[in-house]
């Protein structure tokens, strides 16, 4: 082995702490960068990538089985412009009820579901991703789409279909995701055939991809081509992928700025920490460099040896970090895919290549600059490092600190960082990033929970679903997936009977009813949903962005999306075309409603009475008197409502949404990693500082400094750094949050009210500000313990 090789090897072995810290810092930095880079990639057009990955359906078409045959539909795959097709698959819209094991009232009605019979999830179009469990291959099995809006979350859950012959029960054996949202559930073709409801014609689903489907006009032309290739009137409904893309993109747009901010924060912090650690490690070797030079090493050899000493642990750290990053990316990207409603294909190979190359390049460059500086020092000066006093550095701080009425170990520690301003700046920067990340994460968590609360608007204690048993065919009810064409309707039960039951039930404080209908609004494309409220709905839980809740017929509140689509402002009057009648409503409030994917208007039911006198509430939201047991109330009310065929259940949201859970988990994980990385930066700096001061510490211990006082001194030395880092990082995190949250809203077409941004209570701000101190103290604990344990005689001997 050459002399240079021996120097590198001995440097790596003898300076174990720095070798370990360099390796750890590089590992964490690479892990964070892989995650951050993957988040950035995943946030770049998530729907388009997932749609392409699943060979998504440009058109999801539904055919009336009584007007066409499977063979005719198969041949429609040869229609003009069709490049790929899947199907025909049998399909039906069914009304599931809860079994006994859902934690909900038994036999409660779940949202209608479009069920498709498919032998497997794959295929040339709509290559469905199985998320959990297996595919439905046998009788009595069903796979639910994760987009199906129900509280069913567990495999093995049994769904009941009481209106079908034989009261069939299907067990959930899997959960799957179709980016094209072609179904709410899938069963085997044989199972679908056995589920045929009496009095309803069967249906077929065909999935098409076209050569050109980038615009509404192109998709319309494609649809026409398919219609002309099938018997007249057979095509009864079709869903364009553009509508699905619009809805999904609106949802994902809400979260893209958040994940991009986290990704960038991670990458930037990684660069910073690696820079701090490597330059610090090389910088402390200056005296050794002097010795090497006195032995005849040229500056170039010195530079090479120190680059080698930095690169050996960095290479190991990079390799481990890349593995850890790829392993951690699996749950992180899976959670991200849940947020985006897409699928994950793992870490993009180029992300690994860029991160690994970037990390090693950064280490090389940093080590090169630091070693070059040390290598250029005159040998005699390099040898003198640590043996001669540093002129003037930190003395003023030491003098000032000594005057403070604090125990001497504390004042000694407080002055220490000022002796090395550059090193202190690096440590402050690490803490700034850590504090900013924690502040941002806490704020995002609060904002997202606020969004969730606003989305739920679940202020009712008990809700009565007023739909009676299914009766026939034709239109969708509220809550039905927007991309399917329901073929049966369910009439609402007698409203007078329901309200009589609610009024008679002990514990009722107040209630309102909600009905849904569709109208058109001049200037707004497509249909607009109208939610019509009966009774005092002011407590419904909708959050106002501006204006007020409606108080009289003829007034309405709308979400930001409607204002944008209609080009109106509060105070304007818009015309609702309802059943051929024009109804003017004055917009009095802007409501925050992030879950809507269509334009909507909220008003009093009386507003629509001229056009729809028979519009009855589909749900009744009930507020109970204080002290009333909601479950007992619902059970008692269900007893009264049973003859009407409707059920009452909890009005509270069933836990957090999957999206919020995923985002919370992501936030927690990323924050933990960023804070740990910041702590590692502190640890490295304090290790360097403590090693450099080991002789001073030895002197102090020889003069009677106890181990506890030694720990106090080291921790005090980082406290001031932590305070400064916290003081800078806190406003930085707040600013990042204040920029990101509105950006999330704007990209989703929503205006966030101030209350969604001002989510930090004063006590939380104080705690977050002290978070910098916490990061600093946690990072300094290990070296402080080491300093306290170092034997005085050893410390005094240390050069």
């Amino acid at each position, binding site marked *: 082995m050459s002399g240079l090789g021996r120097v590198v090897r001995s440097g790596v072995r003898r300076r174990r702490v720095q070798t370990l810290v360099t390796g750890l810092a590089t590992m964490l930095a690479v892990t964070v960068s892989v995650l951050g880079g993957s988040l950035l990639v995943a946030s770049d057009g998530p729907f388009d990538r997932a749609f392409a990955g699943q060979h998504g359906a440009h058109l999801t078409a539904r055919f009336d089985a009584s007007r066409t045959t499977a063979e005719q539909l198969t041949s429609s795959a040869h229609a003009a412009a069709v490049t790929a097709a899947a199907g025909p698959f049998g399909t039906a819209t069914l009304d599931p009820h809860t079994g006994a094991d859902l934690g909900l009232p038994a036999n409660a009605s779940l949202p209608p579901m479009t069920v498709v019979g498919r032998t497997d999830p794959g295929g040339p179009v709509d290559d469905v991703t199985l998320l959990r469990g297996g595919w439905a291959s046998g009788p009595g099995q069903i796979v639910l789409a994760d987009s199906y809006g129900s509280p069913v979350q567990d495999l093995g859950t049994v769904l009941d279909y009481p209106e079908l012959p034989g009261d069939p029960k299907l067990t959930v054996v899997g959960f799957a995701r179709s980016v094209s949202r072609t179904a709410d559930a899938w069963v085997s073709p044989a199972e679908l055939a056995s589920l045929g409801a009496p009095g309803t014609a069967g249906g077929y689903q065909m999935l098409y991809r076209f050569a050109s489907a980038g615009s509404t006009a192109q998709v319309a032309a494609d649809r026409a081509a398919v219609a002309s290739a099938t018997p007249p009137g057979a095509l009864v409904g079709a869903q364009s992928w553009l509508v699905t893309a619009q809805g999904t993109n609106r949802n994902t747009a809400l979260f893209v700025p958040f994940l991009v901010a986290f990704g960038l924060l991670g990458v930037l912090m990684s660069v910073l920490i690696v820079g701090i650690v490597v330059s610090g490690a090389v910088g402390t070797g200056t005296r050794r460099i002097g010795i090497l030079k006195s032995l005849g090493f040229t500056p170039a050899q010195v530079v090479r040896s120190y680059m080698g000493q930095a690169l050996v642990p960095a290479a190991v750290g990079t390799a481990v970090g890349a593995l850890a990053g790829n392993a951690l990316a699996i749950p992180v990207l899976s959670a991200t895919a849940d947020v985006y409603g897409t699928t994950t294909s793992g870490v993009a190979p180029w992300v690994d290549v860029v991160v690994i190359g970037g990390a090693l390049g950064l280490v090389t460059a940093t080590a090169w600059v630091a070693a070059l500086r040390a290598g250029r020092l005159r040998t005699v000066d390099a040898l003198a490092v640590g043996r001669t006093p*540093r002129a003037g550095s930190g003395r003023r701080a030491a003098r000032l600190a000594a005057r403070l009425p604090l125990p001497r170990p504390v004042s000694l520690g407080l002055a220490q960082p000022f002796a090395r301003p550059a090193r202190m700046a690096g440590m402050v920067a690490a803490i700034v990033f850590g504090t900013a990340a924690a502040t941002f994460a806490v704020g995002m968590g609060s904002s997202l929970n606020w969004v969730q609360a606003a989305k739920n608007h679940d202020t009712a204690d008990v809700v009565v679903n007023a739909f009676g048993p299914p009766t026939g065919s034709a239109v969708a009810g509220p809550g039905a997936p927007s991309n399917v064409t329901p073929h049966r309707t369910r009439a609402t039960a007698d409203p007078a009977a329901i309200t009589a039951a609610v009024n008679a039930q002990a514990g009722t404080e107040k209630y309102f009813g909600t009905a849904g209908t569709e109208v058109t609004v001049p200037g707004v494309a497509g249909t607009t949903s109208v939610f019509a409220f009966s009774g005092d709905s002011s407590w419904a839980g909708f959050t106002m962005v501006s204006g007020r809740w409606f108080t009289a017929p003829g007034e309405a509140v709308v979400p930001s999306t409607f204002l944008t689509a209609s080009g109106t402002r509060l105070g304007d009057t818009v015309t609702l075309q309802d059943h051929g009648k024009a109804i003017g409503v004055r917009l009095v409030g802007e409501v925050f409603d992030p879950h809507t994917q269509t334009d909507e208007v909220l008003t009093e039911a009386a507003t629509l009475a001229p056009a729809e006198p028979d519009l009855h509430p589909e749900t009744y939201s009930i507020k109970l008197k204080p002290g009333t047991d909601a479950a007992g109330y619902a059970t008692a009310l269900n007893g009264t409502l049973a003859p009407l065929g409707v059920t009452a259940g909890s009005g509270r949201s069933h836990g957090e949404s999957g999206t919020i859970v995923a985002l919370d988990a992501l936030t927690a994980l990323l924050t933990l990693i960023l804070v740990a990385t910041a702590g590692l930066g502190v640890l490295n700096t304090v290790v360097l500082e403590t090693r450099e001061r080991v002789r*001073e510490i030895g002197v102090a211990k020889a003069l009677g400094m106890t181990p506890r006082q030694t720990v106090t001194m080291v921790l005090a030395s980082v406290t001031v750094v932590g305070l400064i880092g916290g003081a800078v990082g806190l406003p930085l995190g707040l600013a990042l949050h204040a920029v990101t949250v509105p950006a999330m809203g704007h990209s989703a077409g929503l205006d966030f009210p101030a209350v969604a941004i001002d989510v930090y209570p004063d006590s939380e701000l104080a705690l977050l500000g002290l978070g910098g101190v916490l990061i600093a103290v946690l990072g300094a604990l290990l070296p402080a313990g080491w300093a306290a344990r170092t034997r005085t005689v050893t410390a005094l001997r240390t050069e």
Partner: protein
Amino acid sequence: MMSTPVIELSGVSRRYQEGPAALDQVSLTVRAGESVAIVGPSGSGKSTMLNLIAGLDRPSAGTVTVDGTRVDALSEAGSARFRRAKIGMVFQFFNLLDDLTVADNVMLPAEMAGTGRGAARRRAGELLAALGIERHARAYPGRLSGGERQRVAVARSLMNRPPLLLADEPTGALDSASGEDVKALLNELHADGQTIVTVTHDLTLAQACATRTVTIADGRIAADVRTEAVR
């Protein structure tokens, strides 16, 4: 009448890993008011003995008692508290903290022991005046000569009025003029009744300051001679 023992080493050995004993079965008693020089060649074990007396190191065998306290049985914190109360230390390379002024260096042991800053400042002022360096109180150690720095170190060692002063090669890093200065200082302290143990390989220092010279060779006491210091 024999004065009270300040140091009692009984059968003390110190071994480092598998090598030969740095100290081997050494027994030594030093009484209050004595000024003892421990001399011997490099590696003979004299610094090891000093470290054991100061509680900076622990013996492999035997007991070390200083001013009635079993130093070898103290915890790390206990020996730190013991040092600041009972022992003043002077080092070859002064070991002053560069970032602190002379006064702050001198005050440090008292402040570490919890003495108020005002009281510590008064005591430091007295000591600096007594040692003739009060004009340097606000200066930093880097600006002083070697002799002046060692005077500061001596002032610091006396801050808590320790019954025992340990000096490790106190003239080893000084020119001859400064060395003479320090010798005179140690003699003055001894004349005032201070018990002093000085480790040195400088026989002239031993002759000048010590009333007793203990010679160590290969970890054992080779000679223990009472002398009269050359004043």
